[in-house]
């Protein structure tokens, strides 16, 4: 009875967070395209700056979330920032997941000194807190979208690599691997067609949970001034921009913060639900691994 109720609640959560992400993705794509407001150019600052939410300026343009200190429409700006935040988060963690899967697969399949070297590298990178590593890397290259993605990939692959490696080491001993080898499949084919597809569950969950994390890290870097650079908006640098306006015009910092929370929340809930579903299928092995 409780199981049924929980699973129904779970699927409602999945539907809700997927819906939220789809609406958000559509909004960040279409709002900046269709709006007449320019989210980057600065116009008549004195007349337009810091209008509160839900007001109309003297040109008749409606500002759903008000304007920032340069008189730019906050809603359109936030949607443009959402494009960058979502893209950076998704692309960053997808590539990190791919690199991690590749490293984990090579490590488990080749073994020997390759395995030791790769795992030593991942241990060394894990010994530095991810944000510290992220800061060091971000500060070394020219700040920008590409740097942030690259740095997220460089600092994010280790967890997935360990998961895939552990999973593959277990699968290596299973009869179907022996069977495929006995049928004459090459080692590479066994890995690619038989072992790897069976080892991806945890990696997919970790990557999904990583999206929210990556979006948070990107916003943090941009907040510190080491990520996306103004005038190009990102939720992080918009919050930084509203920092000293928190008394005069709180909406400037509040709105991007809420967008950030909603997005990360949806990603986390989705990842949690996926993990629970996977745990339901292979509960025993997952518990052993934890």
């Amino acid at each position: 009875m409780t199981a049924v109720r929980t699973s129904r609640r779970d699927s409602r959560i999945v539907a809700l967070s997927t819906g939220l992400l789809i609406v958000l993705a559509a909004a960040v794509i279409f709002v900046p395209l269709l709006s007449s407001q320019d989210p980057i150019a600065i116009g008549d600052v004195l007349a337009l700056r810091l209008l509160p939410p839900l007001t109309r300026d003297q040109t008749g343009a409606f500002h759903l979330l008000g304007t920032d200190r340069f008189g730019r429409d906050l809603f359109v700006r936030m949607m443009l920032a959402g494009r960058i935040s979502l893209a950076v988060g998704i692309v960053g963690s997808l590539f990190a997941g791919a690199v991690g899967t590749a490293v984990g697969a090579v490590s488990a399949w080749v073994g020997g000194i390759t395995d030791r070297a790769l795992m030593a590298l991942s241990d060394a990178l894990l010994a530095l807190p991810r944000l510290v590593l992220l800061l060091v890397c971000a500060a070394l290259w020219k700040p920008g979208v590409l740097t942030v993605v690259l740095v997220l990939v460089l600092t994010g692959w280790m967890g997935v690599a360990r998961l895939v490696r552990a999973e593959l080491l277990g699968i290596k001993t299973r009869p179907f691997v022996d069977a495929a080898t006995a049928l004459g499949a090459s080692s590479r084919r066994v890995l690619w067609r038989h072992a790897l597809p069976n080892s991806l569950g945890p990696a997919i969950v970790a990557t999904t949970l990583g999206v929210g994390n990556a979006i948070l890290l990107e916003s943090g870097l941009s907040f510190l001034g080491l990520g996306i650079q103004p005038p190009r908006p990102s939720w992080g640098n918009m919050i930084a921009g509203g920092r000293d306006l928190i008394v005069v015009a709180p909406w400037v910092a509040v709105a991007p913060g809420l967008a950030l929370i909603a997005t990360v929340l949806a990603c986390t809930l989705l990842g949690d639900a996926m993990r629970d579903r996977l745990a339901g299928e292979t509960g025993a092995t997952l518990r052993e691994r934890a």
Partner: protein
Amino acid sequence: MQLQRVHPPAVLRRLAGALLLLWLVLTLTFALIRLAPGDPATFLVPPSATPADAARLRAELGLDDALVVQYARWAMRLLHGDLGESFSLHQPVARALRDALPVSIGLGAVSLALTFLIGVPIGMLQAVRRGGKLDTSLTVVTTLAYAAPSFWLALALVAVFTYGAASWGLPPPLRLPAFGLRAPGLELHGAAAFADLVRHAVLPVTILTVVGAAGIARYARSSIADVLGQDFVRSAWAKGARSPRVYFRHVLATVLPALVVLFALSLPGLVAGSIFVEAVFAWPGMGRLMVNAIVARDYPLVMGAAAVYATIVLLANLAGDLALPLVDPRRRA
């Protein structure tokens, strides 16, 4: 996970492994920093300086030598305990770190303790009342806090308790300072100085605790819920044991090893949180030192700070490994 014996040789082997890893981390940081474009000399000379001045400075700092030579020199100095001279602060790196470290460790230790003292009971309460209204609302709160960026929460608290408190006329205990470690321009001693420090620490500690406790509660809830469904817990109930005895003697004792591991694992998250919190509240700790050093391309200082962070994480992992047999009889020889 297999059974493992921890006795002196094993401890030494662990320690040696950790030291090796530390060396690897430092070499990696060295390589990362030196391979990046950007010349620190251009940051250090005044704008009026000529290219010749910059070149002289580069030679003086030893930046013209081959990378291998620089690495060897840096490694030899490190082995002698010399972390070098900070480019931007014009003082030894060791002194800058020594000034900053207590601030961050104090902030981190208090927050970490509160995180576990608050997070574990919340998770336990949720697991016991699983599926109920209390559980649902606490899940909403912890998931929200987990998703919120710490720097944004920090700004929100400053808005309410510094600016808001003053303009709404809240009582003085609720008006909290937004910046720094102590009130500027006041000579305070003894209890008054301590009270001032506590007032300055309330908001930063609250942020780190809220964010940390949310993560711990989420984890504790699921691991305790797992244990609650197991046979030995049902046996304990069936024998007529009272709730506190079941929850503490049977349930908490079972999840304790997992919590010890979590304690070690939560340290990097705390470090990340404290970097943002120090940035928002202008605390003169490691996080701010690190960010400033990176912006100024102060290589020795970045290396020193990275070394400290890596040491803390490795020590925490080591402590977690060594503490595990103490709380988990299955891990004893």
